[in-house]
């Protein structure tokens, strides 16, 4: 009889212990949040269940320069946290051997709400986006199959893949799913603006910021729509074509004349931290961006209809608008310890 009691204590006790450590995600680490008032995310979490092990593996891969052909360049090389995961102060992204790309690296946050990726929208799912920097000869210049072969040589990685996916054999699918578990967790929703909207402490906006918000809603919000500050669309915002880069944007993907010169409408969250601006990083500060929208628009058949009428802003308006844009910086996100480089 005693033995039976012991047996049950061991089995169920063990089960409870395992449940508390293994099955339940550690609170805070892989706690994906849908902020109040936001739409449902577009990303299908049912096909890639977030786990602590998967998130940590993705983070390790994100920071691992071993993913590039010559082990010099990681994802984080061009996507640094303090700038909203972009390449601050670099107009065009750099890759291995100091080669330059054709476009400015994009910020990485709130990706679960993204419906397509890259400046031209050529990528239809977050999970397959990393194939681009991995394979681009001027970025990481590698092949997914080489990465998979290399990771399969590593006993450390093999055990991490086992922990994340119950399979120690590293596959391309699992490399991409792990990276997505990290990148999808990069959420930014705690800026001063957010706190203002939620009537929370720290959300006290100045008179200038509030005036800027009003101007923003009147002149910018039809494309940079709250709360994500993008409508996930593609637009021609009237930039003159750089005749050396000759980048015509989304037309390369759709082959439709109507998409000539259209580029992703990027989110404006953390915008003050993610300079320079535009797909080719041509503007170094927000003042130049506003100069463009008020007096630099080049007319063309595909110009966004919202920009066909002139945007009028006084110098004071511009300063207030910039003050508002600065209130979109989210320090909780930019300095979130979970998104640092840990080799664990």
């Amino acid at each position, binding site marked *: 009889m005693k033995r039976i009691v012991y047996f049950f204590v061991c089995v169920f006790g063990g089960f409870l212990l395992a449940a508390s450590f293994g099955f339940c995600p550690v609170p805070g680490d892989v706690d994906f949040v849908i902020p109040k008032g936001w739409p449902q995310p577009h990303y*299908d979490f049912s096909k890639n269940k977030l786990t602590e092990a998967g998130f940590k593996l993705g983070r390790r891969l994100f920071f691992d320069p071993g993913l590039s052909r010559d082990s010099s360049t990681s994802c984080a090389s061009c996507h640094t946290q303090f700038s909203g995961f972009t390449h601050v102060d670099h107009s065009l992204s750099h890759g291995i051997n100091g080669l330059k790309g054709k476009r400015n690296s994009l910020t990485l946050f709130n990706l679960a709400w993204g419906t397509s990726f890259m400046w031209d929208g050529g990528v239809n*799912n977050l*999970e*397959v986006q990393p*194939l681009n920097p991995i394979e681009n000869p001027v970025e990481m210049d590698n092949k*997914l199959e080489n990465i998979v072969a290399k990771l399969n040589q590593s006993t450390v990685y093999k055990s991490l893949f086992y922990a994340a996916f119950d399979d120690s054999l590293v596959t391309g699918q699992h490399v991409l799913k792990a990276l997505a578990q990290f990148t999808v967790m990069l959420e930014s929703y705690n800026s001063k603006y957010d706190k203002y909207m939620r009537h929370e402490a720290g959300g006290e906006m100045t008179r200038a910021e509030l005036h800027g918000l009003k101007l923003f809603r009147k002149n910018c919000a039809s494309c940079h729509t709250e709360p994500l500050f993008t409508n996930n669309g593609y637009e021609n915002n009237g930039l003159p074509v750089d005749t050396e880069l000759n980048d015509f944007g989304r037309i390369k993907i759709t*082959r439709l004349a109507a998409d000539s010169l259209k580029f992703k409408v990027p989110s404006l969250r953390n915008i003050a931290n993610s300079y320079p601006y535009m797909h080719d990083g041509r503007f170094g500060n927000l003042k130049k961006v506003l100069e463009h929208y008020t007096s630099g628009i080049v007319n063309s058949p595909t110009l966004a209809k919202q920009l066909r009428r002139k945007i009028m802003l006084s110098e004071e308006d511009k300063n207030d608008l910039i003050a508002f844009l600065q209130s979109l910086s989210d320090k909780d996100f930019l300095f979130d310890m979970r998104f640092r480089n840990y080799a664990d």
Partner: protein
Amino acid sequence: MQHSMKKILTFILLLTQSTVFAQNGNNTGTVKIVVQTVFDNEPLKLETKKYVNAHGDSLYIDEFRFYISGIKFSGSGAAASEKESYHLIDAGEASTQTIYMKNIPAGNYTQLNFMIGVDSTANTNGANGGDLDPVKGMYWAWNTGYIMAKLQGRSSVCKTLHHAFEFHIGGYLPPFNAARNVNLETGVLTVEAGKESVVYLKADAAEWFKDPETIDLSKMNEVNMPGKDAMKIADNYKDMFSVTRLE
């Protein structure tokens, strides 16, 4: 006493298990599909054998790979398909040329349907595994989507580096969806309980170059994105399959 008890228990266990297996075997069999790659009527030999296409250009083939997906057998009153039916066939790798479809209900089948390429679900739902894993080299990164079929080689008429031609055919969005459905009359394929039936298919690379559009390799030698050219070649190769025999 205890020993014989164990023996009896083991016996009962084996008995119940074998009944379960037998029940499964009672009404289903296996169909093995063997895909033989050819050029006209000759078995395809990569890299070293010279062939002549419909336009009269001589050429070598270095790579010939394609997806077969959504395989279905049907006949009077019987139908069978498989879940997650995506298979990458590679002329250079014999192991990829045999597909096993298990648990096919016994019966007579006369039709075989499948798609050359992969459906839009596979093209849009992120990182897939197995034959759809992007490591297989049948995937476009910059403009998401699978290369549904690939034919690469050399011809002296191509004014390209190393006289190479490269047909990477794909695209899942209308109007340039390059997936093609194939419907084949198999003759009577009999599937018997617990037995294996075999369907031999021929995939003819020569069909890429003709009917309806004869391809002049000096003019068209590189297709590597969705569009009109990819559609033309997909229309050409959609009838590259035929059933050669059943076993």
